[in-house]
């Protein structure tokens, strides 16, 4: 197995505050890596380094063996697709226009392919403001994969969605078979979908590894200050039930 994304001693400082301290991690090709951690633990900061939203960091980040600091914005955008939790007010454009817009407009067939992969082909020419929250997020997912990236970065992609749409979005992403780095608040979703988990606490990488190795009673108590109970369903699936620490 080859490392697709590699963080090497990555640190980020905001003034006197260390947002990330010496994070080193590897994410394998084709894996879905979940980044979990409490608010302010550095999840979004770590993802922003991949998406180019912040530039100042020390250490090295490589994707496909290429140092991303050396990538031009447009090249990075081709390689790395991004989906975020909250996009704020969106312009009055159609779904197809949303997927296509950018410095260089995308041709219609590429747009249709992207929409097809998220099951939104029928709504291609509908105005964005007429879509439901789940449909809007799928339209943004189509935008994220429009260049057929090898890596998809998701920052809390399911935050404002109901349960059905949360699962729908993550199922879609999983089926794409590409490498995914995904920050999640929902620990049970991370437990269900992740191949690897990175647990962040106060800017440091606390634990990393498989789900059973990282989402444990001890880690949940230490990092999230909650009680975690894992249960196995009749179908054999493992789920995490959280409760207040006594």
């Amino acid at each position: 197995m080859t490392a697709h994304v590699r963080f090497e001693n990555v640190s980020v400082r905001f003034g006197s505050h260390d947002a990330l301290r010496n994070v080193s991690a590897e994410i394998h090709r084709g894996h879905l890596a979940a980044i979990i951690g409490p608010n302010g633990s550095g999840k979004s900061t770590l993802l922003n380094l991949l998406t180019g939203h912040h530039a100042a960091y020390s250490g090295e980040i490589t994707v496909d063996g290429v140092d991303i600091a050396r990538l031009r914005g447009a090249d990075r955008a081709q390689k790395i697709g991004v989906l975020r939790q909250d996009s704020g007010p969106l312009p009055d454009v159609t779904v197809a226009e949303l997927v296509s817009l950018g410095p260089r407009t995308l041709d219609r067939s590429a747009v249709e392919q992207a929409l097809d992969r998220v099951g939104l082909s029928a709504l291609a020419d509908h105005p964005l403001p007429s879509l439901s929250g789940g449909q809007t997020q799928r339209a943004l997912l189509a935008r994220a994969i429009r260049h057929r990236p090898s890596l998809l970065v998701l920052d809390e992609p399911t935050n404002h969605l109901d349960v059905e749409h949360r699962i729908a979005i993550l199922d879609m992403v999983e089926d794409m078979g590409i490498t995914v780095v995904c920050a999640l608040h929902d620990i049970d979703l991370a437990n269900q979908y992740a191949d690897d988990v990175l647990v962040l606490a106060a800017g440091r990488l606390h634990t990393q590894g498989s789900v059973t190795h990282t989402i444990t009673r001890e880690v949940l108590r230490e990092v999230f200050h909650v009680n975690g109970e894992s249960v196995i369903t009749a179908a054999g699936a493992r789920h995490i039930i959280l409760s207040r620490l006594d």
Partner: protein
Amino acid sequence: MLSPRRPERPLRARRTGLLRRVPTSVVVSTLLVFLLVMTVLSVGAGAISIDPQRIVRIIADRMAGSGASGPMDFIIWDLRMPRVVQAVVVGAGLAVAGACVQVLVRNPIADPYVLGLSSGAGVAAVLIITTVGVATVGAFLLPIAAFIGAAATGAVVAMTAASRWGLSAGRLILSGVAVGQLLGGVMSFLLIRSGNSDATQQVIFWLLGSLAGSQWSLIAIIAPVIIATIAATLALAGRLDLLGLGDAHAAASGANPGRTRLVVFALASLLTGAAVAASGTIGFVGLIIPHIARLLVGGMHRRVIPVSALLGAILLVVADLAARTVLAPSELPVGIFTAAIGVPIFIFLMRRNRTTAFS
């Protein structure tokens, strides 16, 4: 599979807006024809009314290079035409500046004046009016000073707001409002200290905006600036679309939102500076016209910019026609009519369009 919220029906339209089934080229050419018709009607209206055929003939003669040939020619070419042409250029400039500023600060109620540029032009105008006066050399100096005032204010606002990442939306609007308030105070102070009531009257008239001072020599300066700047914003239409999605989306799509914002702010400052220098702070065009354009042809800037430019030109030509004919021979501030004509149209369109962010 998830089912869509609305019943599906095949749509041929490939954009949003009330005119989504009309090709953009048809929308643009219709507006262009309407603008030409309104231009000829406006040139014909006044104390002496002139029939359209004669106007077209005289303009064609002048365009062909023949010289002045009588009083009617003088009225049309030297008195009325500069005024209408200035309305076209200033209206287009303010509307496109408004479309840019609304994206820059991601705020639908922003207009070109919210970033303090008009206050900078105002301070310069007050200085000229109270010291030199507008009777003599001041009439020529006023627009130049106003443009320099607006451009200098733009530079100060950009420097105040900029960080190493470029310009952010929040800091830009706050810096613009703060610098604008400060300059507004300076303007009031200068005006009160001068104790010159004639000057005060002139300043107020200038602040309300008017096309009365139009002249070919002025248009020769501002028209190239405004036309070239609108062309530049059109070339950046794709970048503007990305800014409208938010900085995070823009960055993820390979753009540099901070730097794009700096460039677009410079362009909006040029447009506003040139427009205000020529005609004072004409209100409303830059606020509402971009919204009307989006309601008609959707939110993609390669359509919003040309349609805004044409609608802004039309609104200002029509408003100026009203300003100088409603209570003729006395003239009213054109700002009254930009609002009186624009608001009902905007409300009508807003209520017709149920698919946009307004719904």
